[in-house]
C-alpha cells in the first residue's frame, strides 16, 4: 500500500487525517498487510508479543507504562487454542510458524481489536489449500458479524467467491464496479488490464 496524496478517508462517519496508523487503529480499522513476515508480525519476537502488537497499550496487556508478561502469555494461549495455531507454545518466535499459522495469528490479533472495518491485502497469497480455506472462513465470519471487509486481491476466483461488490482499479483509478453475482472472471480481468469495451 502507498501513502495517500489526496482525498479523505472516512470510517463509520469519522474522518481520518491520514498517514497515522495509530489513528486508523483507534478508528477501528483492522489491517492484514500483504507482507506478513516483516510488517504483519515482528518475526524475531514471540507469538505472544505479536498477538499484542497493537493491544500492548491498554489493559490487560499493560497497566500504565508497565507491561504484564503473564497476561500477555495468557492472551496468546487463548488465541493459539481458539484459532488452532499449530505451534509448541506462545514463546516460539513468529518466524518459525508456517504461512497459514502466521496468518491465523495476524487475523486473530486484528479481530481482537473489535474492528468496524477489516482491510485485507492478498491475505491468502502463498498459503496452502487448508490455509486459504481457513482465511476465507474467517473473512466470511467477520462479514456476518457486521464488519466491513475490504479485500484487496488479484485472485479473481477468490474475489468472486467472497465479495458482494467488486471494484476494479487500473493505473491508480477506479475503472469499474460490479455486483459480484453478475460479474464474470473475463469481464473483471479485462477491466484489470485496462480494457475499454468492458466499461
Amino acid at each position, binding site marked *: 500500500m502507498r501513502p495517500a496524496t489526496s482525498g479523505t478517508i472516512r470510517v463509520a462517519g469519522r474522518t481520518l487525517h491520514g498517514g497515522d496508523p495509530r489513528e486508523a487503529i483507534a478508528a477501528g480499522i483492522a489491517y492484514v498487510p500483504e507482507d506478513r513476515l516483516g*510488517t504483519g508480525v515482528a518475526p524475531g519476537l514471540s507469538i505472544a508479543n505479536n498477538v499484542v502488537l497493537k493491544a500492548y497499550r491498554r489493559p490487560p496487556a499493560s497497566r500504565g507504562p508497565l507491561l504484564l508478561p503473564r497476561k500477555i502469555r495468557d492472551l496468546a494461549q487463548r488465541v493459539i487454542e481458539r484459532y488452532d495455531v499449530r505451534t509448541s507454545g506462545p514463546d516460539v518466535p513468529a518466524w518459525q510458524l508456517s504461512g497459514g499459522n502466521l496468518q491465523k495469528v495476524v487475523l486473530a490479533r486484528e479481530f481482537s481489536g473489535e474492528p468496524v472495518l477489516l482491510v485485507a491485502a492478498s491475505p491468502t497469497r502463498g498459503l496452502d489449500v487448508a490455509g486459504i480455506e481457513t482465511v476465507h472462513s474467517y473473512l466470511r465470519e467477520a462479514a456476518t458479524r457486521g464488519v466491513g471487509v475490504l479485500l484487496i486481491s488479484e485472485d479473481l476466483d477468490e474475489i468472486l467467491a467472497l465479495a458482494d461488490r467488486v471494484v476494479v482499479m487500473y493505473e491508480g483509478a477506479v475503472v469499474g464496479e460490479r455486483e459480484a453475482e453478475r460479474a464474470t472472471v473475463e469481464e473483471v480481468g479485462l477491466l484489470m488490464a485496462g480494457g475499454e469495451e468492458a466499461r
Partner: protein
Amino acid sequence: MRIERRLEQPRWLVVVVPVVSLVVAFAFATVVLLATHHAPLHTFRRLFDAAFLSNGALTETVVAATPLAFTGLAAAVAFRMNLFNIGGEGQLYAGAITGATASLLLAGAPSPVAIGLMMLAGAAGGAVLAAIPGILRAFFATNEIITSLMLNYVVALVIDYLIFDSHSYLRDTSGFQANVFPQGKQLPDAATWSSWTIHGLVVPLGALVALGLAVAVWALYSRTRFGFEVRVIGDSARAGRYAGMRTRRKILAVMCLSGAIAGLGGASQDGDFRHQLDPRGLTQANYGYAGIVVAALARYNPFAVVLVAFLLGGLQNAGYTLQGADFPNGLVGVLQGLILFCALGGELFVRYRVRFERRRGPAAVEPAS
C-alpha cells in the same frame, strides 16, 4: 558442509559455547607462548592471579571493569533496537567534560549534592552529544554509525584542546609546572565519589551505579511498554510503524539514553578514579570501543554486560601486571586478542549450526515440508 540458522537454541549452548571458545583460545595461546619460549601453564596461572587472585587484583579489575560496564550498557541499549551507536567513546568524553565542569563550578557544595549534580551533568553531556546522530537518523535517515563514529574524533579533539591547547576553565594554570606539563584542574574533594571497602576489595560508587543501571535497563526493556516498542522496532521497523508506534521518537529517546549512560561513565572516570579531566588517559583507554565488544559478547543482555565487563576488566588488568622485561607488551596484546577473537567467533555457533552432509548427486531432492 553448510551453516544454517538454528531452529532452537538449547540452553546448554549458552554455557558450553563460551567454555569451548576459551579452551580453543588457550590452545592457540599455548602455540604462541611455546613459539616465544614462555611456559604456557605458568603464564595462564599468572594471568589468572593478576586478574582475580593476588593481593589487590580484584580491586584493580573492578577499576578496569567499571567504565566497560557503562559503555557496554550504552552500546547494548542502542544495539537492541538495531541502532548502532558507535559514539560511546565520544559520549564518554563529553560526560567527562561536563561532569568535571559541574564539579569545579560546584566547589564548596556538600559532597552528596556535588556528586549527584556531577552524575546529572555527565549524563546530560553524553545525551546531548548522542542526540545529534539521533536527530539526524530519526528525521533525515542519516546513517548513525558514521555520524556517531565521526563525532568521537571531534570530541577527542575538543577534550585535547581544553587541556593542551587553551587556557580553559578546566585546565590547571596555577604554578610553575602548569605551562610545561599541562593537566586538568584538580577537582574539589567534595566531588570525589564515595567508595566502600569489603574484605580488602574496594568498590567504587561508579561500579554500584553501573550495577543499578543494568537492573534498570533490564526492567525498562522487558517490563515496560517503552521496552516493548523498542524490541518490536528493533526486530522490524515496518511492523513497529504498522502497529502505530512512534519510531522517530523512539530512535531519539534510545540514542539519548545510550549517550546518557556513556556520559555517566565519563563522570565516573572524573569522580571515581582520575579526579581531574584527563584527556590522555581517557583517549588512550578506548572504553567506548571496548564497550561495543562487551555488548556483543553479552548479546545485549544488561546483566551479561556487567559480567563480561568484569571478565574483560580482569583480562585488561592482568595485561598491565603481566607485561615486563621478560614479557613484552605486544605479546600481552596477542593473548588478549586471541581470547576476544575466540569468544566472539564462538557466538556464531549459538545462533547457527554447521551441518555436514554427503553429496548425493543432482538427483537428490529436498523433501517437501
